[in-house]
């Protein structure tokens, strides 16, 4: 009798505490110490890009003319004069520039990944949902696009249509939605034969409403995982483009550009000009990879 009572209590409680995918994921993520640690690091980096400028002496554009050409002798990092990361070769405060560069890199990563997510999800969901000829044509197009060396086309685009933020995003977005579309399509195919879709069809819901209201929300887990893994890739792509000299335009900067400049002046003994941006870059990419990995472990239903 008592056991029955307990059991029913248990059941009632289990009912109340029904665990959603997201709660489950949060618990798993919290248990993953490495991912959690790097999530904190990531948070700190983002926080730093907001709060860092408060203790900067000058902003990223201000040029100290007395420093030009003397960065190697007098521009060392110093706590005393407030230029914590030293000067760059043009007499600008490297601390402010690194903050600006980190911010731009994060921005590019997030926006680039979002572009890829939106296009890739819709494209993949449409292809997967309609199936048949639509699917095979749409996926053939993806196959064809995948075989194109986009980095070269991107550079071509940036040169032909002048460098601009918009062009950079279009290019980077173009590069990256293809993989997303493939993954989403696969998931959609496995979802679309479920009963709730059948119910929606039976009650006369339109195709696009089904895709947006019923299929896409069920894809969010997979999409989140790949989106977080896309962010560091976007940052890498942008840094690559910046390294070649086609990225963000001066006076704005990005980590890739700072690394390029720092690498160029290395021979004059201004090691800090490379090491600070490089450090931020490596830590940023590292944390993003680990957080993405942690999310994958937390959200991937295959591992349950």
């Amino acid at each position: 009798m008592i056991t029955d009572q307990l059991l029913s209590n248990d059941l009632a409680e289990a009912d109340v505490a029904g665990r959603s995918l997201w709660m489950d994921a949060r618990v798993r993520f919290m248990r993953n110490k490495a991912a959690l640690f790097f999530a904190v690091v990531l948070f700190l980096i983002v926080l730093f890009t907001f709060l860092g400028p408060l203790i900067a002496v000058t902003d990223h554009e201000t040029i100290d003319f007395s420093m030009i050409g003397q960065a190697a002798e007098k521009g060392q990092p110093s706590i005393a004069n407030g230029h914590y990361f030293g000067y760059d070769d043009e007499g600008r405060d490297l601390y402010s520039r690194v903050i600006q560069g980190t911010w731009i890199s994060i921005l590019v990563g997030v926006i680039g990944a979002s572009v890829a997510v939106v296009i890739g999800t819709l494209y993949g969901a449409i292809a997967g949902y309609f199936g048949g000829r639509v699917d095979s044509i749409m996926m053939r197009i993806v196959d064809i696009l995948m075989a194109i060396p986009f980095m070269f086309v991107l550079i071509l685009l940036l040169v032909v249509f002048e460098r601009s933020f918009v062009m950079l995003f279009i290019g980077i977005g173009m590069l990256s939605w293809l993989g997303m579309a493939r993954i989403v399509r696969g998931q959609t195919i496995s979802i679309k034969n479920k009963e709730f879709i059948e119910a929606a069809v039976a009650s006369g819901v339109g195709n696009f409403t089904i895709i947006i209201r019923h299929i896409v929300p069920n894809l969010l887990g997979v999409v989140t995982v790949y989106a977080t893994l896309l962010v560091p890739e976007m940052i890498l792509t942008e840094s690559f483009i910046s390294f070649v000299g086609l990225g963000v335009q001066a006076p704005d900067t990005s980590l890739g550009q700072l690394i390029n400049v720092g690498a160029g002046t290395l021979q004059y003994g201004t090691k800090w000009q490379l090491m600070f941006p490089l450090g931020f870059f490596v830590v940023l990419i590292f944390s993003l990879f680990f957080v993405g990995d942690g999310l994958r472990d937390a959200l991937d239903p295959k591992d349950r």
Partner: protein
Amino acid sequence: MIMFIIRRLAVAIPTLLILCIVTFYLMHAAPGGPFNSERPLPASVMANINAKYGLDQPLHTQLYTYLVGVVTEFDFGPSYKFKDRTVNDIIAQGFPVTLTYGFWSFIVATVLGISLGVVAALKHNSIIDYFAVGISIGAQVLPNFVMAPLLVWLFTLTLGWLPGGGWNGGQFPYLVMPIIALSTSYMASISRLMRSSMLEVLNSNFIRTARAKGLPSRKIIFGHALKPALLPVVSYLGPAFVGMITGSVVIDTFFSTGGIGQAFVNSAFSRDYAVMMGITILVGTLTITFNMIVDILYAWIDPKVRL
């Protein structure tokens, strides 16, 4: 098998064609022609130049002439900036360089990556395993444009062992840093892939059977486990190869090796669209061909893939 190759070709050729057409129109959509300089040329001179390069023809005629030239004579046209050189000359000069360090990087990344992955999987959860995983995670965040300055700082500026750049006919000391810079992150990815797929294979039933019937470890690993474990790695080789050709842009910029990457960047900054287009098409062809080879290789290794 032959049908499969034909089918792949049937996709590859339209892809190339699309690439050609898109880059061609892109090039011509560019504001300003290749001969617009600071001082505008007299109209009659301009007309003559345009006539010489065929730029006065309608676009589709130009495209047609260009494509016919490319296909029948392998002629990518003249460079707009260097009057005495054709795009072919420029490619012929840069491409062997890129191919040399690209090829060696590819070999280094594949061989080291696979060995590292296999060893890590065989010694699962040992010091060696953690070491291998550590290396591959570390190397993941060191793409070529990060590796290159670090290598120069270490080997040229600090130790003074290697020349900081140049090509010099591809002598060994000049090859070392480009190869390390280019191969590191791919080696990392390959070793991670190899490790996880090898672990999966080693835990599968047919390996247990092989062990149960008393085969020596060497035979199990090389005869049974390696081939199926290679599958994910093989499918990664396509992207890796593309990455290495693309990485040429960084390697050439940084080490002044003079490969097609350098030619590409130079032509980008001097707006020599003909050269840019030629290189894009060349790289596209390489990419598509290589992906096709990888697919065929994949089908050959994996018995589940029906041709």
